[in-house]
């Protein structure tokens, strides 16, 4: 379908012409073509690739650490009442603190280096994944667990075949939220202080009034966010094939 793309394309053309005629100054909004040339020249030097890779690594590491901890603890509290009693209330209390609000403390603890960014991302990702894993495990139907007991499934088979798949829809919702938070936190953290990464590239360009590079950075953030979202959709499609099938069959 071409129709939905007509308006954005027209806007781009108007924007480009507007910039060339002088309605829009380079300083407020650089023309699309200049963004493209900036992208090409930064690609040539390898600069763009390097910065994007650094940002992606940061995001991935923070997500894995925070998400892994959230998943693990969510399973533990979900599966065991004693662990829930010990941990859940404290975690629920911490959850109410917006993770970006503690940036001043994080800077005091970690300085402004790499670990501060990783900590912030991991902290932000932890809660949605923890909560959704916990709820997912608790929402698994008792009747299915009872069935598993009748068939004498061992702890691992019960977990692998009954509990984990039952909790999976909820866990994946957590992953989706977690990815959104990862990008948001990454942007904030890199913008506040950085000596590398996309955020560093844009802040650096701002000082030299290279607005086209600033805009390029924003576009890349958007693109990466979109890619991450597509990855989760793919994951959902794979892991929840039964769910999917059920829905399409029901609609048909």
């Amino acid at each position: 379908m071409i129709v939905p793309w007509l308006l954005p394309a027209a806007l781009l053309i108007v924007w480009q012409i507007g910039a060339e005629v002088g309605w829009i100054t380079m300083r407020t909004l650089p023309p699309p073509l200049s963004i493209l040339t900036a992208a090409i020249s930064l690609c040539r030097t390898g600069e763009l690739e390097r910065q994007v890779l650094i940002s992606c690594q940061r995001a991935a590491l923070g997500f894995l650490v925070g998400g892994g901890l959230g998943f693990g603890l969510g399973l533990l509290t979900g599966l065991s009442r004693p662990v829930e009693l010990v941990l859940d209330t404290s975690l629920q209390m911490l959850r109410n603190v917006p993770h970006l609000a503690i940036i001043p403390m994080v800077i005091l603890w970690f300085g402004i280096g790499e670990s501060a960014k990783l900590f912030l991302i991991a902290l932000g990702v932890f809660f949605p994944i923890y909560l959704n894993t916990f709820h997912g495990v608790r929402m698994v139907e008792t009747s299915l667990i009872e069935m598993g007991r009748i068939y004498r499934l061992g702890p691992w088979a019960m977990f692998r075949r009954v509990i984990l798949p039952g909790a999976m829809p909820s866990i994946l919702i957590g992953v989706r939220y977690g990815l959104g938070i990862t990008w948001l936190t990454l942007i904030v953290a890199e913008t506040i202080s950085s000596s590398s990464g996309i955020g560093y590239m844009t802040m650096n360009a701002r000082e030299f009034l290279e607005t086209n590079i600033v805009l390029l950075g924003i576009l890349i953030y958007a693109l990466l966010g979109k890619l991450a979202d597509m990855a989760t959709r793919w994951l959902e499609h794979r892991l929840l094939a039964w769910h999917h099938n059920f829905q399409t069959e029901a609609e048909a």
Partner: protein
Amino acid sequence: MQNDLGLFAFRPPEGGPLERKSGGGPIAPHPGNGTHLTLRGVSKGFGDRIVLKPLDLTIEAGNFVGIVGRSGGGKSTMLRLVSGLTAPDTGTVLHNGAKLSGIAPRTTMMFQDARLLPWQRVLSNVGITRGSGWEEKSREALRAVGLEDRAKDWPAVLSCGQRQRVALARALVAHPHLLLLDEPLGALDALTRGEMQRLIERLWQEGGFTTILVTHDVAEAVALADRVIVLRDGLIALDRAIDLPRPRKRTDPEVTSLETEILDQILT
């Protein structure tokens, strides 16, 4: 939110759930593949409500026992006690003379809902316990219930009656010695019900396992069971042997007079 999964409390399947009764008396002979079941002074209550008063019951190996009674009369509770899903407040349940603790050995159960795992295909649901050669065995069990061609489907696309047949295949694939049926046909239409009844009867005759069928439908109990037990106010109100030839006809006067007798017992 309410279910306590208690995952860490699960017994490993190998761990012997049976304790031989020390100095136990003679164990009744049990031909072939059926569990000989004994309940001794078994009672159960929830909070202040007494659901089952201490009751004694012996079921011979290979028997088909029907349990009927009013809703809330404790029929499901009794099956759960026999299966080991619930522990009795007093008394003991014995499988082949051995005291039960934990989930009963060689026992499978069917419920009113099929309880298939929605995320596993039909074949994997039947072979839920896996084990060696499970695929071939599961296929065979599916063939026995006439659903061999649905092995690759998701449970969600099956009809209610087909799902129950898959659940039946799953219950039989491991060659149980005791089959517990908790109103498995309650949600089916009359026609499918009749077919399932004949199927269960045939598979029971071939398998030789002990069967306990809980049902609301007195006619169903009379059609299938060697023995019908009426549970009323937590006690056995009637325990009636039925030795009519099979297959039984609904219109047979002996069958209808038995139905009336049992219904009277339920309703008094």
